[in-house]
């Protein structure tokens, strides 16, 4: 009997960036026809390793063998020629083009000088039937769901003849139901002889689909084991380097008076249709209300209306009984609302400002810092030093530009700034996106601490685990409406997933009281 062929072998790969060793003498062996997981925290070096394999980075040391032959992968096109395809986390699709156009882009079948669209569509249909990837070849990318778009990305790599597919965090953007479908697709691909490398930090997925898992921590391979021989706790300990407590420890919530009350808010989205359809909800002091939902169901628009960045066409927002509907961001911020924005680079920080100036971005005009139009930089520096110490923000100095800090420390700094404003309502949008386990624990603790101090906390996240673990009550948003509110202790992913995809609408659908 012929032994199972090794399709990818990476030997002693070392890749250095200024100041850090991203990959330190990494060995990886992937067998034909398996689903191989690369597990590690953010910044562990798994994406770097795959970018080396895909030809985006050149390693300083080590060699790569594809189908047992040594190769030099100097660019993604070389990787393509070797049958390596990558499905990126952020899709690389042209929104205005059709599914077929996107798939054949760069490899168009031609008749004369024209693109032979008919044979392109046929080729796409053939692939999609073969691997069970249902898509409409004529639909435009902007009109199809995120799950569909991901299928287009997969088809793109297959069209280019990939035998080895790298999936970079493929489930981050999907609903629980779409994840089930993706898993099925991955099984189909393997059945047809493909090999899959899955980059992830989600243990459940590994247990569900993978054959082998290689754990990377701080640029080094910790272990490579068969999934059958391991369990989630063991994997988590190996990934983080210590025992991990998955449950967030917190006391029973003690909700008191209503702080935020959203009443029948309707607002237009960027595409010119209503993104919020008469949405209503309430957040009380001393509780965390989580908002669960698939990306693009009105979460961003809701935050924008609450913070004054988007105008509501009807309805009211009350903060402590005071009407703040369509007030300016400054007025709202000054009336006791703090906000940890979804995109910390775009909205949270001025990256080229020193940390000290970033810490007063919303309060520089207060008499504390502003003396007759001149800023008191001594006071600003003192304020920054205090917050940075209190929240353990690791920065070389308070005068270091925010850009130079790691994502986790940037986020800590934003939280320090927002919490320091002593708000009545704290809105946290995706507060742990892209952060490692340590930073996530820290941020969750801070949110719960705010709750215990009697603040109202509104948490928006696309990570169901986070919503379930941190929130006291969970509101599910679907197509700009709250379709149901459940107790976090009495629900599970299945129920939430169903509601998130509009499958289950709870009686009333209002504020759940």
């Amino acid at each position, binding site marked *: 009997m012929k032994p199972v062929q090794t399709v990818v072998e990476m030997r002693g790969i070392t890749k250095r960036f200024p100041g850090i060793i991203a990959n330190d003498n990494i060995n990886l062996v992937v067998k034909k026809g398996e689903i191989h997981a690369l597990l590690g925290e953010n910044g562990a070096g798994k994406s770097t390793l795959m970018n080396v394999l895909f030809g985006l980075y050149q390693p300083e040391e080590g060699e790569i063998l594809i189908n047992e032959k040594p190769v030099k992968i100097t660019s993604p096109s070389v990787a393509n020629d070797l049958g390596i395809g990558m499905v990126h986390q952020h899709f690389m699709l042209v929104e205005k083009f059709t599914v077929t156009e996107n798939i054949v882009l760069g490899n168009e079948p031609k008749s004369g000088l024209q693109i032979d669209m008919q044979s392109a569509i046929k080729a796409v249909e053939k692939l999609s039937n073969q691997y069970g990837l249902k898509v409409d070849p004529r639909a435009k990318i902007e009109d199809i769901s995120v799950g569909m778009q991901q299928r287009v990305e997969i088809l793109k790599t297959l069209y280019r003849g990939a035998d080895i597919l790298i999936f970079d965090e493929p489930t981050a953007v999907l609903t629980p139901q779409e994840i089930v479908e993706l898993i099925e697709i991955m099984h189909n691909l393997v059945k047809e002889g493909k090999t899959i490398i899955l980059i992830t930090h989600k243990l459940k997925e590994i247990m569900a689909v993978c054959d082998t898992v290689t754990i990377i921590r701080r640029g080094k391979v910790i272990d490579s084991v068969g999934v059958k021989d391991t369990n989630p706790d063991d994997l988590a300990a190996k990934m983080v380097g210590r025992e991990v407590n998955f449950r967030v420890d917190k006391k029973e919530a003690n909700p008191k008076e209503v702080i935020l009350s959203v009443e029948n808010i309707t607002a237009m989205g960027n595409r010119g249709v209503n993104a919020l359809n008469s949405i209503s909800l309430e957040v009380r002091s001393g509780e965390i209300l989580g908002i669960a939902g698939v990306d693009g169901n009105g979460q961003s628009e809701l935050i924008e209306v609450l913070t004054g960045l988007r105008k509501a066409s009807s309805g009211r927002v009350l903060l402590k009984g005071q009407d703040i509907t369509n007030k300016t961001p400054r007025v709202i911020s000054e009336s006791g609302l703090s*906000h940890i924005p979804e995109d910390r680079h775009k*909205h949270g920080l001025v*990256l080229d*400002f020193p940390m000290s100036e970033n810490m007063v971005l*919303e309060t*520089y005009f207060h008499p504390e810092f502003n003396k007759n139009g001149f800023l008191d930089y001594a006071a600003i520096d003192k304020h920054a030093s205090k917050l940075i110490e209190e929240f353990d923000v690791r920065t070389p100095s308070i005068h270091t530009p925010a850009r130079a800090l790691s994502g986790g420390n940037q986020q800590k700094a934003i939280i320090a700034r927002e919490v320091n404003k002593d708000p009545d309502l704290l809105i946290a949008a995706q507060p742990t996106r892209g952060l490692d386990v340590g930073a996530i624990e820290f941020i969750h603790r801070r949110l719960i601490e705010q709750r215990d101090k009697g603040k109202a906390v509104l948490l928006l996240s696309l990570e169901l685990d986070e919503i379930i673990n941190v929130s006291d009550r969970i509101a599910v948003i679907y197509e700009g409406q709250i379709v149901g509110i459940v107790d976090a202790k009495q629900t599970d992913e299945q129920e939430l997933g169903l509601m998130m995809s509009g499958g289950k609408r709870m009686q009333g659908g209002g504020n759940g009281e």
Partner: protein
Amino acid sequence: MNRVIAIFTKESFLVPVAAIILGLLTGAVAMLAGGFNPIQAYASLVEKVFGSSYNFGETIRQITPLIFTGLSVAFAFRTGLFNIGAEGQFIIGMIASTAVGISFDLPAYIHAPLAVIAGALAGGLWGAIAGWLKAARGVNEVITTIMLNWIALYFANYVVKAFYLQEGQQRSEMIKDSASISFAWLSQMFDSARLHWGTLLAILAAVFFYILLWKTKSGFELRAVGLNPHASEYAGMNVNRNVVNAMFVGGMFAGIGGACEILGVFHYQSIMAAQPGYGFDGIAVALIGGNTPLGVILGAILFGMLTFGAAGMKFGAGVPVELIRVVISSVIFFVAAHGIVKFFIKPLLQKKEGGN
């Protein structure tokens, strides 16, 4: 002492200096290709600038408006805007001060400041038009400022022709003596070179630039909006108002520059066949100066010397005046393409690292 060395080996300093040297070398190559002697040409350029007290004074006269327009462009740039309109704001500053200088009869201590202030306000408002169009209608300021340059040119010419024309000449009447900001005493020291108080104003404007941007609450907002308008909006700043303010302050700098040209140098306004060009050179000055006030002053000195000294190059080495434009363009090119410059100065930087 170490601190001084640190400043002179800093990249922000080394890159422009290297760019200037590379620019001069490129100019030299162009001269050689044309059969001229570059060493002789540069020697006569320096000779022209420093050779006589009159010429040295005139070089300062040449430098002054460039500081103003350089500050104008740099200020807008600090707040995230491309002010291509310093030219037009400069012209509007000229015509406003001409109008005040001719129309009123006031004591000098009121008249001259009033004429300068008129130039500042007019230039500022001219800039604010572009700012307002961007804030209210989302029109790109590059396009509007370019259009406003032409409107300013023909509007100024019209005003001169319609109201202030000196009969039989292509220029306005003379402004009243009380509006003049010429520095008679200093002019005499420099052999009647046209020196004026505007040079001092230019230095003060640079100081104002620094204090406003880095010491005040408004400056904090302006810089935040310039670096990240999204985060600024989240933080509750009024981005649109800041855009208008930034264009107003930028236009004010250029407007004072224009006023000083009239009140300090010419004392009348010509009917212009083309743009005077100070605003466009201001873009280059701001670029070379890294959009810092001190950098703008140094950049303006360089440009002033090169343009004024170019005449000497023609006289001393027969090199056409236009060739200095090759040098200036090369300097700009090398500043913009700092990747190339860094390649040339790499050995220098590495030596510095080794020394530490």
